[in-house]
């Protein structure tokens, strides 16, 4: 999409300056210094500590700390609760990515053309994205309440269910689906905005040209629209992937400490801050960090193809 225009003979590295005083040379470094200090001290340095801590025995209940090689990973993987949370997180990712990107694309297609009130609809659609995950967990837990919840009473009076259901708590896949739905509620606007922006960047002539060639309806969407919004879809997939791999707030509120629907993040929190076993917490953190980065890169590779128009 991007092209670099360079006249022959023009130096690559920008404009040429006459003489630069010492102050001028120092200025850029002074401008980026605060940024680098913050990121160095509270992002990069902690990450290094995580990578190191994963290989150190660090258990507040069993001191002292010592190097343990892969010991933390062994105890983490032999822990059935951790294995359950790994499996659960897989489900969170599948539900989260498929539902948020699917629904987001649907919303974007609805909002693609101008109509009266479109601005307001867009503003209202963004609302769930702007709300804290915890708050969403809380208001949805009332909707999903097994005794007084509006979902139960509505579905029962519509004849869909014969008796009130415990949506979250007993059945693994069902619990994860509903907790995931709450997160999907939050992140769908993001996917919708990304896809919508891509849709609106498509030149109108492309549709006209395709129509002249006899394409219509579904063919138009599949052959013109879809290829051109592919990069936006890729970003939406990656965002959904990262969010659902990191799901915590909604699980913390709705699952309330049970292992049925625990996520990798709630399990990490549990290991480090309830069991006070920082070593195992670090091991799980390192795994999750590497997984997040690798999966994001893979998703970009698979879906992102350069588009020219």
């Amino acid at each position, binding site marked *: 999409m991007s092209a670099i225009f360079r006249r022959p003979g023009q130096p690559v590295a920008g404009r040429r300056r006459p003489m630069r005083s010492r102050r001028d040379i120092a200025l850029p470094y002074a401008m980026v210094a605060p940024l680098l200090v913050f990121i160095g001290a509270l992002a990069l340095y*902690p990450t290094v*500590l995580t990578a190191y801590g994963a290989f150190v025995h660090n258990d507040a209940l069993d001191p002292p700390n010592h190097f343990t090689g892969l010991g933390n990973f062994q105890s983490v993987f032999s822990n059935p609760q951790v294995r359950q949370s790994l499996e659960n997180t897989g489900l969170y990712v599948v539900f989260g990515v498929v539902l948020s990107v699917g629904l987001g694309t649907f919303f974007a297609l609805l909002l693609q053309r101008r109509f009266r009130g479109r601005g307001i609809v867009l503003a*209202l659609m963004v609302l769930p994205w702007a709300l804290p995950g915890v*708050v969403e967990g809380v208001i949805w837990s009332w909707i999903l309440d097994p005794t007084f919840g509006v979902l139960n009473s509505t579905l029962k009076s519509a004849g869909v269910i014969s008796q009130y259901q415990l949506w979250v708590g007993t059945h693994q896949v069902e619990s994860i689906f509903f907790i995931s739905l709450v997160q999907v509620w939050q992140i769908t606007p993001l996917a919708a905005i990304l896809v919508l922006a891509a849709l609106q960047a498509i030149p109108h002539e492309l549709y006209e040209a395709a129509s002249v060639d006899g394409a219509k309806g579904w063919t138009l969407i599949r052959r013109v629209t879809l290829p051109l919004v592919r990069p936006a879809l890729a970003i939406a997939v990656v965002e959904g992937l990262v969010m659902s791999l990191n799901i915590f707030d909604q699980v913390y509120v709705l699952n309330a400490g049970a292992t049925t629907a625990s996520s990798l*993040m709630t399990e990490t929190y549990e290991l480090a801050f309830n069991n006070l076993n920082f070593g195992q917490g670090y091991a799980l953190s390192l795994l999750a960090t590497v997984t997040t980065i690798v999966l994001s890169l893979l998703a970009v590779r698979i879906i992102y193809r350069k588009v020219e128009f």
Partner: protein
Amino acid sequence: MRRNRFGWVRFIGIVILLLWSLFPVYWALNTSLMTNSEAQSSPPHFFPTHFQFSNYEAIFGIGPSSASTAGGIGRAVVNSSVESLGATVLTLVIAVVGAYAFARLRFRFRGALFYVVLATLTLPVYATLIPIYEILTHLGLVNTYIGIILVYTSGFLPLAMWIMYNMFQALPVSIEEAATIDGASTLQTFRSIVLPLVRPGMAATAIITFLFGWGQFIFPLVLGSTNSTQPLTVALSALAGRHVVPYTMINAAAIVAIAIPAVIVFFMNRWIVDGIVAGSVK
């Protein structure tokens, strides 16, 4: 005819979109205005029969049914505001200045440093959570506003820098070149020519940063053990976790936490959309 049918399909789609986006918030608002017995009635009431604000009075410690169940929501609102605003101001200043240098100035290691900053965008919470807890404990910054603001700022900076970088890139260089030819120094050009032009971008960055701060949960949960620094999210989850608190009151607290983001979204959503798009251009 066909056109008409398409209109209907879209109309139904928009109705679904609005129900999906608004119903949960409406339901919380509805419940928060009811008495506990009305909230538990079956079939459910889709409007409160008589509005009453006792739930709000209770969570803020006003009126009869307060003290015992109130979760210090008033204090939590103050904490959330201080922490989110503090982090927003700090993030915005540092990100704008840094992004300008990366976008426009030439210096050694510029590319390498830029990619280091950008790479931290992909770091998940996992990577930093436990070490940050250990570092702040070591520095005695647990249970302080400063500690929380520093942590938020470090987390929000990469995205804020990236949004501002894209905003600066979208400006034509010729304006700055003209200023330089007229004898303005780099700093003068930045302050009086460039900054006014990227005001919309700064608004977008500030709004998104504030909303992120307002929604933070796991870091303040770990970094604050007393309600002196606990934001609304932590106070709300504590309130919901105590099973004696009626749902009407919990929903009132949720509506308090929703109010500010809702106002922001309604009046400033243009900037939010711009910011999200600018933050995703890859």
